[in-house]
């Protein structure tokens, strides 16, 4: 099951790669279930700017993403197309948890897409992602898992909110107690 989901992600990646062709191989390492890989090697060789320049289309190479943290502080980053939001967050020191390191087995990389218009540009969540979203704290209509969101040109300018855990925890506990 893990394998089929991973290949789905890969297929999704390949679709984007067709739109923005790159000569180097996609970062399959991230999706091979190789534990501990993602966060320990922040600098990969793929998606080098040189490659993108050669392709001559700078616009599709990187997209702008804004993260809004628990204290409403905004952080603007650039994410290469094809990279997952979770990985991008970690490379940019954004405090997004990733307990299962991107294998869609926890809900800790939950993010909220601020704008419904952007949310609608995302592929529908798989059953497996929905299973995890079921358990996410402070779930909203536009919640997604960061590990399952892959940067693509249409998402340029997207704003992602990190759920305020403490507040939601108190609310969730209250809701369950009553």
């Amino acid at each position: 099951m893990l394998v089929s989901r991973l290949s789905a992600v890969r297929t999704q990646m390949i679709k984007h790669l067709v739109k923005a062709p790159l000569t180097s191989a996609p970062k399959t390492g991230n999706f091979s279930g190789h534990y501990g890989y993602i966060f320990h090697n922040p600098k990969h060789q793929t998606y080098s700017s040189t490659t993108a320049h050669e392709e001559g289309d700078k616009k599709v190479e990187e997209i702008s993403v804004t993260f809004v943290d628990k204290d409403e502080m905004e952080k603007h980053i650039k994410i290469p197309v094809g990279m997952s939001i979770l990985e991008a967050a970690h490379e940019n020191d954004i405090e997004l948890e990733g307990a299962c390191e991107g294998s869609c087995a926890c809900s800790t990389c939950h993010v909220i897409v601020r704008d419904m218009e952007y949310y609608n540009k995302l592929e529908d969540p798989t059953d497996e992602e929905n299973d995890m979203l079921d358990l996410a704290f402070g779930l909203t209509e536009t919640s997604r898992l960061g590990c399952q969101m892959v940067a693509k040109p249409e998402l340029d300018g997207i704003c992602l909110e990190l759920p305020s855990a403490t507040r939601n925890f108190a609310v969730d506990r209250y809701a369950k107690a009553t």
Partner: protein
Amino acid sequence: MANFQAGTWLFRTFSTVASQPLRVCVVGSGPAGFYTAEKMLKAHQEAEVDIIDRLPTPFGLVRSGVAPDHPETKIVVNQFMRVAQHERCSFFGNVTLGSSVTLLELRELYDVVVLAYGAESDRVLGIPGEDLSGVYAAREFVWWYNGHPNCRYLNPDLKSSDTAIILGQGNVALDAARILLRPTTELATTDIASHALAALEDSSIRKVYLVGRRGPVQAACTAKELREILGIKDLHVHIKETDLLTTPADEEEMKNNRIRKRVYELLSKAAMTRPSHPSSDARELHFVFFRKPNKFLESDERSGHVSGVRLEKTKLIGIRPGERTAAGTGQFEELGCGIVLKSIGYKSVPVDGLPFDHRKGVVPNVRGCVLSDTSGDPTLLEKGLYVCGWLKRGPTGIIATNLYCAEETVASISEDIKLGRLTSSSNSGREGLLQLLDNRNVRVIPFRDWEKIDSEERRLGNLRNKPREKLATLEELQKVATD
């Protein structure tokens, strides 16, 4: 505003004047303990955090609770390992709160004590026959297949009958059912304990009944675990179509609860799917809704052994708006089996000197600050004593729940520091604890010794094409740690 400034000033005073560190002891090294340690280290640069555990091995239920066929759920251990290797963090295994060191002693040694030792006992049904042999708590069964040293010799009887009954329909029940039903060839490449794998390979169990007091809309499992068990190869799933009829109250419940709705949909879909080709060695999974256990039946042939469960039919009745309970109808039926697993909830166990709410099975607390009694008076606080995880909020939730739970407890600690409620005294912390344990001849297992166990387990696993071969007795664990 004045208060806030005073608080800030005190906080600064604490952190600058305190040339000695803030000494923190976390009891229990499962997710609640490790998330607490991680957040304490991050929030307080002066904090030194010691994590103690009664076992030689860290990670609590990630090691002994998470099912062996869920390796992706265990990846969080990587994060916990980085915490344990932090320069201001230490792990001391083989140290039992209550016998190696008392709570009073810990509180004297440390500025802050956070109890995160979980729930290591079980709720009981309180019905006749509960202590017949063949009736186990699901926790014991889970510990057994996960190589927990306390259940190494459980030897559940999987041979005398082809039927197991599991009471409960939560994720623990589903895990146990899946381990009983899944082809052992698939389990063989997991980190399942070898004694359990051997017993399962030899098991006669072909039918598993999952019994719930309420209906498919109220089933306590989550969609992931349900989807997984329904997907087992050559498994015949039996769900009575009449059980799937919903009432307006059920519809309302599903409208307000996404998990309930998705679980119900999965069950409905499974009920409609008929197996295409019956195979000779087919295994069966039966969902039994609206039944509660009334009595465990004793075998005629094998005295003292369970041979079945008498179940009472139930119906749901509203007790207050939005809340319904399963009430007995006085109609009974019997279901035969050779083994029963009770999966009706875990229970925490208190230690000497710890306020405890026996009714709720948790330590009385306000946002993680331990209260002196169960009166609910939030001003009667136990200075420097905190709680996190199942001991704080009861045995529910997923690993990630502890992330938020720890965040809340650490916020409470930070608040107490800010308000000057904690005083960094002459407490000797780590050195004092190790001295005390040494005097008592407690053989402490530090993290580097656990790493020896870890690498030996991986080495043994490698020989059998498993990620890990768990050492499942205290003797083996201590031997490898000491060598």
